[in-house]
């Protein structure tokens, strides 16, 4: 009975959230920064939660997230550009070799599956490595993937180092919220299942977990593949948000940003990752923007304020969190 009411309440909250979003879109100026933050925040929340599944719940320190997002973004872009637009997009490669377009939901799932497939292959060798070696190996794989997608010989599929564009995108903020919300809900269910408990056991003590009969490699591989699936979906969402995709944007700096979001939210906390990603995006894109503009009070110019100062202040805040507030916003709740 208690569980039932709790479920009802959370269902009501979700419905209320979507209603608020819908109303906001009706009344507010669509160019408002609020919508930028909401859209990008939802996408980053998904990828942060997927990274948290690996780093926070399974204890695998992986830095390959940007690479899997890249695969998802490209898979989505390649499969959904309408055939009539392909000649313009693939102008250096005679319109490319793919001459069909899939519906958006199917393409989103395939984007995730493509990332998951690559993760499966990469996981076979690298998941045997320990902590920081795993981190550097996954980082290396992300760089290899990035180089691979820019390779000219694959141009008819990936468009080489040129932009992919003109694929279907979204304009309403409801779409990314719906997709990201659905994916995060699945991750929550997974974390609370017996598999999730096995993941946490591996994180807390590998040797003890193995002694209790948990197949280490199988569970690590599973966490890695699932995390990459959702990273791929979020990559596809990011492609839709940006309206263009280019491999060179998915640098290791992107993974670091996501890692910092996870840390600020609290390693091992899903709600923390969501809150932190909205805060991160809001500070980065909106609230701290004033630091980038020169400001005069009377004739006195406020010192230090000019382009780039926002990022400096921002990284100092992050360092403070990392050093003095190590459990993050939500701890591990």
């Amino acid at each position: 009975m208690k569980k039932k009411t709790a479920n009802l309440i959370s269902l009501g909250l979700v419905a209320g959230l979507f209603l608020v979003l819908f109303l906001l879109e009706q009344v507010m100026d669509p160019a408002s920064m609020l919508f930028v933050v909401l859209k990008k925040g939802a996408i980053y929340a998904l990828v942060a939660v997927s990274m948290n599944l690996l780093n926070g719940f399974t204890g695998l320190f992986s830095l390959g997230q940007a690479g899997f997002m890249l695969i998802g973004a490209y898979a989505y872009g390649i499969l959904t550009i309408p055939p009539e637009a392909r000649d313009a997009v693939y102008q250096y490669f005679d319109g490319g070799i793919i001459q069909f377009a899939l519906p958006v939901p199917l393409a989103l799932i395939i984007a995730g599956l493509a990332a998951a497939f690559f993760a499966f292959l990469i996981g076979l060798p690298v998941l045997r490595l320990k902590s920081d070696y795993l981190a550097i190996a996954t980082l290396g794989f992300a760089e290899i993937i990035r180089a691979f997608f820019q390779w000219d010989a694959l141009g008819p599929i990936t468009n080489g180092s040129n932009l992919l564009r003109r694929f279907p995108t979204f304009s309403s903020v409801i779409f990314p919220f719906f997709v990201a919300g659905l994916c995060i809900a699945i991750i929550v269910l997974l974390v609370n299942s017996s598999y999730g408990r096995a993941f946490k056991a591996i994180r807390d003590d590998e040797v003890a977990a193995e002694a209790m009969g948990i197949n280490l490699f199988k569970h690590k591989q599973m966490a890695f593949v699932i995390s990459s699936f959702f990273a791929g979906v979020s990559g596809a969402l990011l492609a839709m948000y940006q309206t263009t995709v280019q491999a060179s944007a998915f640098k290791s700096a992107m993974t670091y940003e996501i890692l910092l979001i996870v840390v600020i939210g609290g390693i091992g906390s899903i709600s923390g990752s969501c809150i932190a990603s909205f805060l991160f995006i809001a500070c980065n894109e909106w609230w701290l923007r004033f630091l980038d503009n020169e400001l005069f009070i009377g004739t006195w110019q406020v010192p230090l304020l000019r382009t780039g100062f926002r990022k400096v202040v921002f990284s100092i805040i992050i360092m403070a969190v990392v050093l003095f507030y190590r459990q993050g916003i939500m701890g591990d709740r």
Partner: protein
Amino acid sequence: MNFMQANLPYLLAGISVGGQYALIAIGYTMVYGILRLINFAHGDVFMIAGLIMIYAAAAMPLYLAIPLVLIATVVIGFLIERVAYKPLRSAPRMSIMISAIGVSYLLQNLALYVTGGLSRMYPTIPFISDSVTIGSATTKMVTLITPVLTLILVVVLVLFIHKTKIGMAMRAVSKDFETSQLMGIKINSVISATFIIGSFLAAVGSMLYFTNYAGVTPTAGAMPGLKAFVAAVFGGIGSIPGAVIGAFIIGICENIIKGMGWTTFSDAFTFALLIVILIAKPTGLFGEKATDKV
């Protein structure tokens, strides 16, 4: 012979870049040997050294600027350790690594702020930027100086580690952190010394490295940093000669690949090599075998 002639410029460039990677890799390998930390910020310290050189050379003559760069970089390396890593000494290893990533993010953003996002011209250091001709290849003097200077510095460093008291302390700490503390070794000064040596070599490396390039951008340190780390892993992390040999191998292979027209894959190759090494021989060429106690 034809092959040699065609590839001589790339081989020379490879040896030179290899030497520069070696100077950075020593910083990684020494820090990892003692703290078991991948110091992600090391590549950015290298970039900052390049930026300081640009601003110092604009303000004063070179014979003052060069020592200033060396001192400033050493001070920065020392401060990073004291501020960002020391408070986390008893924290889980992952926290220190995240702190290192945070420092790297901070340094890059700081550089972006100071330069305003523009690439700044690197000053020409006379003598080492002069052109020389070897066989069929014309190259800068720095290509010849780098390997020689690297080898001299490495020999001095190895002597330092094996003959002095603080060197002995470093070896002890890298063997067993806790026991050496019990034996009365001042762990903090040993760690500081490690960071000072690493930053000094990174500053020397940055002078040699950026001479070959037009300018310094805020992210210029990330790639050389990662490659130097790969070199350190390749040679067996914790081993100085290993890091140097690994760096030369990576530098040469990378430039030969560029020479074959596969420039897109020159970075990817380094990481592929890393992964092969990690899987086939995780302790690297000269690494010591580690055993896990339960």
